[in-house]
């Protein structure tokens, strides 16, 4: 999952640049060499898209309709047969799957506003020039993103675990008792890890978009008497709406695919079970329950939800664009 999301996440950075060159693309019909160049340049992308996305997706869809089927008690009579929607019915009737979806939605509901608002505020601060050592602070903010998710989670696991964590120890000393693994603290603990690793990255994306805003617009606003806060909220933020939408899509999809962090935290607390999130459910179905059909059906359902969400967000933003002249 990670590499895909990361590759996808880089899209917003190139997004604005792409739309900028878009209108200029009304060129005469390409020559042969140009077509060849296009082919060569697109080739690796198409090849990768086919081999690591399209083919596995189709295979998962295929798998989801088949099942190692037993009749009756099932001893020694397994055969793989077409099972229709049986796997889908099983996934949807499994309370652990629906609970996992609930957990991820709750997580997304907390994480999404936090990361978007936080990153936007930081990016606006950097852009306004109020921050002194901008380069340094940007780097410091960005560094956690360079730490692989697994390592980051292990670090936090250490900081969360009572008895070995200096943070919990310190809080304990000042009579603040925090159990990061308590039931109501699970989602906040996960959001905290995700914020730590994702905030700087999102800030950089927003900051890049803000830099692309024509300077005259900001100057004109200043001349018209808008203060820095007003300029930020009414000029800058609306101008980077497209970037905002893209970030929201990718963050939502990333949140729905929550896996690494809870998987590692599940080693520390029994409250996080092996089916805590939909992605963990898929992993458990395939590798603990040896039920590939079930895992495939859950994967296809998750993919469908991600596609629907992306579609909804894209539609929402383009329509709003059309309203504005």
């Amino acid at each position, binding site marked *: 999952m990670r590499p895909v999301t990361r590759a996808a996440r880089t899209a917003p950075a190139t997004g604005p640049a792409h739309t900028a060159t878009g209108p200029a693309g009304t060129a005469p019909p390409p020559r042969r060499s140009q077509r060849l160049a296009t082919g060569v340049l697109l080739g690796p992308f198409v090849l990768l898209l086919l081999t690591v996305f399209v083919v596995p997706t189709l295979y998962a869809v295929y798998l989801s309709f088949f*099942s*190692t*089927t*037993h*009749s*009756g*008690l*099932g*001893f*020694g009579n*397994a055969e793989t*047969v077409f*099972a229709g929607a*049986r*796997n889908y*019915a*099983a*996934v949807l*009737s*499994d*309370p*652990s799957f629906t609970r996992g979806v609930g957990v991820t939605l709750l997580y997304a509901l907390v994480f999404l506003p936090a990361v978007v608002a936080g990153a936007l505020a930081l990016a606006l601060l950097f852009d306004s020039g109020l921050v002194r050592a901008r380069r340094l602070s940007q780097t410091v903010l960005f560094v956690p993103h360079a730490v692989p998710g697994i390592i980051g989670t292990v670090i936090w696991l250490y900081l969360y675990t009572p008895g070995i964590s200096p943070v919990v120890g310190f809080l304990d000393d000042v009579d603040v008792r925090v159990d990061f693994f308590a*039931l109501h603290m699970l989602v906040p603990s996960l959001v905290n890890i995700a914020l730590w690793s994702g905030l700087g990255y999102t800030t950089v994306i927003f900051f890049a978009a803000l830099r692309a805003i024509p300077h005259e617009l900001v100057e004109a606003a200043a001349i018209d008497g808008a203060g820095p806060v007003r300029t930020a909220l009414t000029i800058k933020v609306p101008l980077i709406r497209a970037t905002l939408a893209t970030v929201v899509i990718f963050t939502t999809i990333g949140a729905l695919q929550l896996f690494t962090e809870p998987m590692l935290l599940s080693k520390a*607390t*029994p*409250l996080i*079970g*092996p*089916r805590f999130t939909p992605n963990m459910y898929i992993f*458990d*179905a395939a*590798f*603990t*329950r*040896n*039920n590939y*059909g*079930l895992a495939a*059906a859950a994967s296809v359902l998750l993919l469908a939800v991600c596609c629907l969400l992306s579609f909804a967000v894209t539609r929402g933003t383009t329509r709003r664009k059309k309203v504005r002249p």
Partner: protein
Amino acid sequence: MNTTRAPSRRGVLAAGLWTALATGTAGATSACGSASAARRDPDGPLTFWSALRGTDALVAAWNAEHPDDPVEFDMMTSGLAGGNAKLSNAARAGNAPDIVSVVDADLPGFAIDGVCADVTDLVTPRLRDQLGPEAWTNATLDGRVYGIPLDLGPMMFAHRADVLREHRIDVPETWDDFREAGRRLKRRSGIDLATFHPNAYNVLACHAMQAGGRWFAIEDDSWVVDFLDAPTRRVAAYWQGLIDEDLLLVAPGSSQEWLSALARGRVAGHLVGPWGLAALAASVPGGAGKWRVAPVPQWGGGRPVVGTDGVSLHVITEGSNRKERAMRFLEWLSTTPEAITARLSGGRSSLFPAARGLVEPASRQFDPAYYGGQDLYGLVTEQARLLRTGWVWGPRMQATATSLHQGLARLPYGTTVAGALEAAEAETLPDMRSLGLSVRRS
């Protein structure tokens, strides 16, 4: 210009990389090839995976005695810790060993997945006779035998005799006595009589088994699932009551919290199968001489019954083409005194063998000094006669167990034992249905 073309840096790197790749792949393929070729050779050595302590000594004893029929042994991790997944994957890839040890609860899953073979017709009358019905029940599904039982696991009540005596509390004989003893002990000393392990589905199942519950049953070619039948409900309510009254320590099995409570004398009892007695002695060395073992409390009314708390079986894999030889080895392993003596020679195991003739040699390997020299094997022999037969585990027990553990972990947050059982059942059914099994709730 250079006329002598020195190999470029990039060229050398590329060549090196290709060589490495080529040799790597070649090595891997040849290793695979030879391994599976050896597995397929019907006259090759038997291969054997086990997570059980002492198996290496046992295999060494066999190999010394039978140099013409050697066994290759590999230690594996226990089922829940990854052993089950390893075995499933190996079976799918066609390179599972001939013989594997599994715990009773995982047997139906492996039988359904076609990992372990139906060995009904390979069991000799002598072997069938040596192991009694209370052992075969753990290996039999719908009348067919899928494994060879190694041990028996009647739950016992290990307790701190000194603590109970000091507070003038009799060793409880019924579960009502047990609750009363718990109340008295807690009131007089603040000590818990026992521990509730939220991560021990086998213990809860053992209690349900003793009370007459059936979580899974096989009726007319259909699985019948009911985690909350009347006996299980009774068990769930009983333990919920003890937890609510704060008479038990609630702590995961083998957790630091539990072991330190035992070591500090904050818990005065431990309900466990015979295998757990040596484990207790090893984990809490400071309790030496203070612990004694008693029969598990009864529900009262009629003949006493005891539940099974975790036993091991040896299965022959479906893919093996040396099943007869494997069975010969298994018969030796489960019924000869040399085998049990070698297995337990480390002195750190209190395994109770299923074969009647092995109890005496097994008892000589375990020093009961920790339990004040008590005749443990004699007591377990009596209790094993009371074992309930006919319990059936589910076809995806590891998943069911983790669901149950999930629910029980939420006990401090208002989930009840009965609620956890109900949730585990609800999460088990979809999985069984998607496998195409015929399932109904009773």
